[in-house]
């Protein structure tokens, strides 16, 4: 997180950390548009009112994002039920990762699919650990679970991913 301190505007900071926050929010929302709304709400609230709080800014914003996502989900529950009945419950499928030069698009797609298959409780820990680089203690605080539980869920998520991707890795 120290790297963020080298940046001197919210735009620079958000360009560096926005993708991670958005990916994080995406775990708790049904669509990318919802995730963006929630990131905007949480980030603006943090920037206006919570910047002087002690602690890691990224962890604070993620906590704020999660709370906003939970509130949003409660508001949208009835609408979601109607949509599930209408469209069969399919979630919006938008690409999670940015294509990199020379990467394997097929492999990237399989990883995305494998991530989608993980239980939410495992996927959220994995995203916070891998892409947001939080410690298990910070993850535990964010998700209101014991650190050992966070570590266990992370291990289960990696095990499940390895199992799902193994045929591709060695095939």
């Amino acid at each position, binding site marked *: 997180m120290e790297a963020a301190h080298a940046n001197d505007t919210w735009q620079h900071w958000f360009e560096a950390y*926005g993708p*991670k926050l958005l*990916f994080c929010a995406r775990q708790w929302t049904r669509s990318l548009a919802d995730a*963006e709304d929630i990131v905007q709400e949480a980030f*603006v609230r*943090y920037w206006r009112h919570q910047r002087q709080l002690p602690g890691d800014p990224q962890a604070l914003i993620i906590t704020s994002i999660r709370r906003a996502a939970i509130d949003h989900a409660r508001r949208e529950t009835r609408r979601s039920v109607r949509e599930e009945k209408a469209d069969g419950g399919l979630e919006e499928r938008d690409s999670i990762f940015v294509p*990199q030069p020379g990467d394997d698009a097929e492999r990237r797609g399989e990883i995305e699919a494998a991530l989608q298959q993980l239980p939410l409780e495992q996927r959220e820990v994995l995203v916070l650990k891998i*892409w947001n680089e939080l410690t298990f203690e910070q993850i535990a605080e964010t998700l209101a679970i014991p650190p050992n539980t966070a570590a266990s869920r992370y291990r289960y998520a*990696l095990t499940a991913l390895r199992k799902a991707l193994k045929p591709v890795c060695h095939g």
Partner: protein
Amino acid sequence: MDESFHELEAELKSLQPRAPSAHLMRGIADELPSAPATAPRARLRYTTSTNLRSWKWLGWRAAGLAAAAAVIATAGLMTLKRIKAPVAGALVTQVVANNPPPSETSSLRDDYQPVAATNVLYDLKDEGLVKTGDNSDARRVRYRYLDTYTWKSPKNNASLKWSVPRDEIRLVSATLN
């Protein structure tokens, strides 16, 4: 963590999440037009200093000035009490002229002695990186104190207490050299 996961973790970390859309950036920009353009940073913990430029020494230096100000203010009050005498306005002017403040001030100064000066640090805020005169980086840190000075009269044990907020801005070198 299981070492056998390292390869998978490295592969996952190599994947970059998609960037926020321009719509999201515009939305935030619309809501933060007047916010100070400073990056979020962890708040500094309380620190103190023992050198001669510490706030403790500044406080005692300021105490002398504060004492003088308080004595003058008290002298003014005493003078006002005197001119409340039931006399005509012209006579009041004469009374004031015949009792110049310096003698009164001198008397009060003898009566009241400074006995205590305290500084309470109630807020500490890191205001970000700035450039100093020699173009080196420094962090501007604002310390907010409540200074309280107390005087006491040995004659009648009366005390006078004066509290005033004070902001102190320090530039702390941001380089290790």
